[in-house]
């Protein structure tokens, strides 16, 4: 499967609903500092179910809701996967994650092809297509530096978590 599109609504610096189309092959994303490039990566991690707000550079999940002139109290991201030639299943799959609530408690809701599901169902689907959030499928800004600064013991622990 490959990523066909990512729709981001009121998430971080995406105060305007935005749909990004992706092709197979090699896509390069470029633009000035602070324009929102890494926020696209955060949107990927968010919709694919990351539990930790730190991975998406926020103190609380509530901080992910766009903070601008007008403030709504929810945001959502949808990702659409499309089958590639070698896939058995020929259907598209769409995952949506919505968070609602003001600064305090934030509730996360997941949808798989329009049906409400739990976090585990998303995890199961991702495993079925071989997409792991914690191995190096996602190399975040600064990860290179973290690997360089790691001690020998930390590097072994990293390998243990991947094994």
């Amino acid at each position: 499967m490959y990523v066909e599109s990512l729709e981001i609504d009121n998430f971080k610096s995406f105060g305007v609903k935005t749909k990004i189309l992706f092709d197979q092959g090699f896509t390069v994303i470029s633009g000035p500092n602070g324009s929102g490039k890494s926020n696209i990566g955060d949107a990927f991690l968010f919709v694919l179910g990351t539990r930790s707000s730190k991975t998406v550079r926020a103190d609380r999940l509530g901080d992910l809701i766009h903070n601008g002139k007008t403030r709504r109290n929810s945001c959502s991201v949808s990702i659409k996967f499309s089958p590639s030639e070698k896939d058995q299943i020929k259907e598209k799959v769409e995952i949506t994650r919505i968070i609602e609530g003001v600064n305090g408690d934030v509730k996360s809701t997941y949808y798989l092809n329009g049906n409400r599901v739990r976090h585990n169902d998303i995890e199961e689907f991702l495993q079925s297509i071989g997409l792991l959030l914690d191995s190096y499928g996602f190399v975040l800004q600064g990860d290179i530096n973290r690997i360089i600064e790691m001690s020998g013991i930390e590097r072994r622990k990293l390998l243990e978590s991947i094994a």
Partner: protein
Amino acid sequence: KKNELLTLFRKIRENMKVIYRALSGGGEVELLMSDESDPLNTEIHIRASPKGNAFTKLSALSGGEKSLTAMAFIMAVQNIKPSPFYYLDEVDMFLDGSNAERIGSMLKANSSYAQVMMISLKKALLKYADSLIGVTMVDGENTQVFQKKVGEADPF
């Protein structure tokens, strides 16, 4: 568990050698365990010889040489646990033009069997891309996105 770690370690070590040789244009790299008889308590170190002379500890290499070595480690892990798509955020930041081009051409090669998305500020990388996404912020608050398939008119 002990054997799993040892097997993974050996696979990454082999993969890393091949990838580093291509990324550095002929250099050598070593992934070492301080004590292979006790994998669950050992330390794992990296030494490299970017120009083919004496092996140097990771901490004594230059900024760019370190980041190329770290990239070889990451790509070795990616090879062992393949994913349908990869996302890489400014991994070329410490690299000079020719090292950045080598990363670009390797990612282009990888993109024939997995989808690759890379964030980069370097013009040298754009020529390897199949499609480009331009990101900007005009009103100081909202991100705007422009898309272009390579070969179409330039939206930037």
